[in-house]
């Protein structure tokens, strides 16, 4: 049965090539004589969402899914995805991760704190379960070799040591599955990955300069002729023309002070004011949307 079957997870973002990379691993393992099962989910995950692929191998594999806390290694093409899937790694296992960051646009929506919730790089993040974290600058390695798209092969090379099969199986699998004409560079990238040094952790992004907080919208109603320009441009949907033509402030707390409405109003009917000094000593409200 499957007592000795091992597991590996590959994780990344839709479009990064997680599925091709996992097919290469599965193919290499099959060439090495193992029973292999490889499982992923298509569909919604493709559209810029999180993508994960499970690989199991052994004499005879039962489950195609890796059980939580049992994977030898997690190969992550992106740091936030490493954190998302690390619970599948066994105690004393390993995480090999690119130092690449892909900030989801959805994380760029806190217009009070102006901060993405993107996690900082931390080498000790998984140490409580004695999981070793290995950072690889796959992009830099691939660019050095002349093709940024070979970054995935760099990661595969960095993971190879945890899989423990002969090099020839990797080389054959890569040559048979990567797009025609890119065999050589992908093989070079794989070798680069095998010897890749521990990458320098990128510095945390600078904190945004102080933001004054939600601005105040003053409307000079008798100057407004209900032309409907300002409700169409407000990025935060703060304004609305009522059925009787009155301009309403419907989302006052969301005004960021961009002044588009003020600048575009043909009748100078809108004035945007920063919050009064006394009001913005309170901590900014965060998590407006999610």
């Amino acid at each position, binding site marked *: 049965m*499957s007592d000795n079957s091992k597991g590996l997870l590959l994780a990344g973002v839709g479009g990064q090539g997680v599925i091709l990379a996992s097919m290469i691993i599965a193919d290499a393992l099959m060439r090495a004589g193992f029973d292999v099962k490889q499982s992923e*989910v298509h569909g919604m995950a493709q*559209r810029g969402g999180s993508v994960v692929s499970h690989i199991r191998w052994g004499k005879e594999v039962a489950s195609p899914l890796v059980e939580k806390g049992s994977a030898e290694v997690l190969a992550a093409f992106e740091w936030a995805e490493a954190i*998302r899937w690390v619970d599948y790694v066994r105690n004393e296992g390993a995480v090999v991760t690119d130092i690449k960051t892909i900030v*989801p646009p*959805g994380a760029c929506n806190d217009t009070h704190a*102006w901060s993405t919730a993107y*996690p900082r790089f931390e080498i000790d993040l998984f140490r409580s379960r004695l999981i070793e974290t290995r950072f690889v600058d796959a992009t830099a390695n691939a660019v050095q070799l002349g093709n940024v798209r070979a970054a995935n092969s760099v990661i595969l090379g960095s993971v190879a040591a945890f899989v423990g099969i002969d090099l020839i199986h990797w080389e054959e699998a890569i040559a048979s599955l990567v797009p025609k004409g890119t065999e050589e560079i992908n093989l070079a990238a794989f070798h680069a990955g095998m010897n890749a040094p521990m990458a320098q952790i990128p510095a945390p992004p600078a904190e945004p300069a102080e*933001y004054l907080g939600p601005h105040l919208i003053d409307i000079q109603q008798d100057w407004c002729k209900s032309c409907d320009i300002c409700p169409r441009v407000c990025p935060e949907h703060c304004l609305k023309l009522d059925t009787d033509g009155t301009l309403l402030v419907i989302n006052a707390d969301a005004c960021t002070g961009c002044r588009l409405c003020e600048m575009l109003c043909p009748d100078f009917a809108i004035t945007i004011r920063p919050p009064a000094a006394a009001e913005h000593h309170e901590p900014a409200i965060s998590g407006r949307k999610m």
Partner: protein
Amino acid sequence: MTVDIEPRSETGTTVLLSGNEAIARGAVEAGALVAVGYPGTPSTEILESIAHRTEMQVRWSPNEKVALDVALGASLGGVRTLCTMKHVGLNVAADTFMTMAYTGVGAGLVIVVADDPGMHSSQNEQDTRAYARMGGVPLLEPSNSKEAKAFTALAFEISEQFDTPVLVRTTTRVSHNRGVVELGDRMDKPVVGFERNPQKYVMIPGHARGRRPALLRRLKELAEYAETSPLTKESGTGDSFGVVTSGIVHNYLREVLPDAKALKLGMSHPLPIGRIREFSKTVDRLFVLEELDPIVENDLRAAGIAVEGKEFFPQVGELSPDAVRRGFAAAGILPEYLSIEPAPGTVARPPLLCPGCPHTPPYLALKRLGAVVTGDIGCYTLAALEPLSSMDTCIAMGSSIGMAVGMAASGGAGAPVVATIGDSTFLHGGIAGLADAVYADANITVIILDNGTTAMTGGQEHPGTGTTLQGAEAKAVDLVGLCEALGVRDVRVIDPYDMGATYSAIEGAVAHIGPSVVITNRPCVEAPVKVRDTPFKVIAEACTACQLCMTAGCPSIVWSEETFEGRRKVVIDPVTCTGCTICAQLCPPLAIIPITSEAEAAR
């Protein structure tokens, strides 16, 4: 999505095939000559993987009902036929399905239905095993790629031996799991020819009354077959407990309890009640381990067999080795389950419309209008999420238009009522809804988001694309002509990349009294051709961080580290930007420009 080309022959060689590819290969080896279906995750790759086979007719139908009709016709014509769809597709095809169980088939007919427990890419997680029981149709459940091939081939034999359609039910983890499969030869199955038999094939009441007892007799024979068939497989040892399993969950059982006594049902309808009863007598406790509904569990209870199941294993979502371990721990079979806490602090990463998606501008316009938007099934359903958040309903394929008619009839919308529907979905299930909108003279606008493909499932052909799955040219449905023929007076075609035209067309159509149609005509940027124009960039000094571009929800635009008055400026990723110009058209200070015109911008 990567779709392997199914290997040509090399009989005896072993290859890695996904469950879907293995099913297709099983049909090939069984000598099937017609394969037909409608795309739907996780079933889509079955037909795609054999589209290159010139000796077969491999086709997309406009919907699952038509696909099953085509399949039954082909089967009665005397060729082995495969029909594929996702679980909810069988709802569409159910009308044919329920009665074809009465008629039986000609040559073997196998219906593959891929369930999606956990709803990775579906609107519900209905259980196809219930349909097998309602229709009285046998159902096989492969648990891996090897069985997916073997069971599909066997299903054709069963179909012919018992004169019945046969369901092969997979789940996401069977369809999208690659495993090692040994290839076999293709069987040569010549066309048998149609034999006229109105008593059997013309289901008027007088004839159908005769077929109903035949259906019940056949089910009894199939149950006897299941009792002795190698599809029912006992393994493991021990007498304290035993487990009845089927499909993917058998693998999870073996992962968690490698030696436990188990009875695996390759055919889970009709059940081999005798075998299960015997099996139950050899153990103190009998568990049923099944994903989704307690269907086998209830059947066994009805047969007077004491079982345990759903009190330990969840009825919601997909099972996993973890869920099975937790269940057996709760049942006292395994030691206490120690869960692993996920690492804290990562960011949510929901799916998004692609950079350059032509669906984006219409939803920006609809959000400004505050319209009540009845949505439909496709990529554009993602417009329901932040930041577009401009869809109010999404139920089933084609539902948008009928729901808009009803919403307008209610008088309670409080805003203009707009249905949005993709081209493939419109041809699948929207035409009758539009006929009703005209018939009811409903004051609604229907936006047909025509991107020339079935995008959500990876870009499949349909009757509007002018091409077929096997690469031939075909006549393309004329959507404008179709809408006009149905009686819509106000039909507008717009380029959704022209923001001004998009806004004014939608506002104009909404103002029209009675049904109106707006058709967008930009192709999908990902399929069938990757559309890539000059990427754009943000002139940082000009960006006022107003966030207007961010309202489009483009994955290529994120916050930069620079700020203006404390607000974050934005940057565009030139690698993923398709150059669609949507953000540039939105930008008030004209800070977004094509990368090639850098010199010009510097002036």
